[in-house]
């Protein structure tokens, strides 16, 4: 993964708006900000302590004027136990890769992370036309404060994260499944939840057809093999 320094070196443009925003967020939240990543001209990420998750939303909305709620979700950083991204043998051959065993160490994305599950959300300032993506680690209890009281739109997004990942939001007054039927077992977007259709019948991969059958032996040995294989050429005098 390219680090922040490398990207700055590639793009000499300095992103003043996002740089100032990052300073402002750090001023407001102090030591609660434990990770940051600035990709100039593209986006800004910060990672906050789990217990400061709701405070981040409150500060962004009330102090910094980020009144637009964009989305909220969760990421499962564990590699899928069903092989690397469920690639088929054809994918691996064509992609020049090998079937890698699941990594021992947990690799997490920009702005870092220590736990398997991470919350991710995004708020936007219409006045400054800039958005900020925030992450927070989720411990074993999978519990985190709800944003629904601050950004009302988060209520549905949290219900989705609840059923898909099993995150329990504290302070959410209507935490039940939104898409899945009541009583559905499992959390489908977790990496260890199998995609049954793919397990039953492997995906053909990058090519949508099966590999061509082996060319018959006589065609290879005959010097005029082309004429026997091509009826048009053979028929013409």
């Amino acid at each position: 993964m390219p680090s922040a320094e490398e990207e700055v070196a590639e793009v000499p443009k300095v992103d003043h708006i996002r740089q100032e925003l990052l300073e402002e967020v750090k001023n407001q939240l102090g030591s609660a900000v434990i990770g940051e990543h600035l990709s100039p001209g593209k986006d800004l990420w910060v990672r906050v302590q789990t217990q400061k998750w709701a405070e981040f939303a409150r500060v962004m909305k009330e102090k910094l004027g980020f009144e637009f709620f964009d989305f909220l979700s969760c990421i499962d950083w564990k590699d899928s136990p069903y092989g690397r991204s469920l690639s088929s043998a054809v994918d691996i051959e064509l992609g020049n890769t090998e079937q890698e065993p699941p990594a021992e160490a947990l690799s997490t994305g920009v702005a870092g992370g220590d736990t398997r599950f991470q919350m991710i959300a995004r708020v936007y300032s219409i006045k400054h036309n800039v958005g900020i993506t925030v992450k927070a680690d989720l411990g074993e209890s999978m519990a985190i404060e709800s944003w629904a009281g601050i950004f009302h739109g988060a209520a549905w997004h949290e219900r989705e994260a609840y059923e898909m990942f099993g995150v329990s939001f504290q302070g959410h007054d209507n935490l039940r499944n939104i898409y899945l039927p009541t009583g559905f077992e499992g959390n489908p977007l977790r990496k260890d939840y199998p995609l049954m259709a793919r397990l039953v019948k492997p995906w053909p991969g990058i090519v949508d057809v099966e590999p061509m059958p082996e060319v018959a032996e006589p065609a290879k040995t005959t010097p005029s093999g082309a004429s026997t294989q091509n009826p048009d050429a053979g028929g013409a005098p």
Partner: protein
Amino acid sequence: MTAQMDPQHAQYVAAQVADARVNVELETEGMTLNIGPQHPATHGTLRIIVRLDGEQVTEVDPVLGYMHRGYEKLAEVRTYPQVTTLINRIDWVGSFANEVPFVLASEQLMDIEAPERAQYIRTILFELGRIANIVLFLGDMGVQLGAVTPMFYALRDRELILNQIESATGGRFHPNFNRIGGVKDDLPAGWLQDTKSAIAKIMSFCDQAEGLIVGNEIFQERTRGVGVIPADVALTYGLTGANVRASGVDWDLRRDSESPLPYDKVDWKVWTHPDGDSFARYWVRLQEVRESCRIVDQLLDSLPSGPIMAKVPRIIKVPAGEAYVATENPLGEMGYYVVSKGGLEPFRVKIRTASFSNMSITPWLLKGAYMPDVVTILASLYFILGDLDR
């Protein structure tokens, strides 16, 4: 029927009338009404459980998921070029627009940019998709109020746009035309001229819709002051697109985001309306179609020559990283948060669809509305079920 009423029966009727008077004075008993999932006003399979007090709505509980297809999970087991086929089906009425943010996010991760001509073709088809989508809304809103005629005009004129999309991409509804690094093909011969005449027809459809619907007294009575959303509430619920612009928020990602699409090269305007009611949402969308026509018209005139594909490897491998790219789709902001761990497939794709956030306001918005207005408010918010359920 006897001319003279039996005295015993007359007494019974009088008692009933007295009872009815008492009932009017006292509070009526609440009633739960189940709208959908097979109801024409819900555009598909949305189910809404409404608690009524007389004609007034006291509680609304939308039930989603009848069309949940799990695209976020399915995208994790497909290669990047295969994902575009899948996400075409999210908003199936303007589906070209679904592909663009995903392809832009992938390009951002790979640090490549499509050539200028490809960006122009993308933008033209993006706007044609918007026209095809919103023209349907302009007709459909009439149906919700009992005026069926505009729907047929909308279907007739939308066909012209679909024909243009089909002749360029091969698909009427699911173009699958975007490639990482450009577009699949160049535009066919004579396409520019045909598109121009189709655009002219859409412009005249807009005038027709304005006369038939916006100027209609019944339409105004039913929509003005109904379903009012204040700007701050709209933003906290995450409303986007015409829904938030109808509440007076001057914000359009086409103009306001750092996008490689050439929206800054043409002259167009973002329309807003201060009222925030159902009428304003209709009016803003009508203006949006006109602006889209203007954008397409100008882009067709200034279409640059050059390649349509950047140099990309045959097997697309995206370096590790994360990117969120959103565009202003017909229904509002649609964005893809793509997480790559460096493989052939995305590690995680979070799809932010406009309808999901737009509809999350309904429990708040429909509270206190009258039952006949529920249908018009839902229609004016404009959602596509595929976009809502993903």
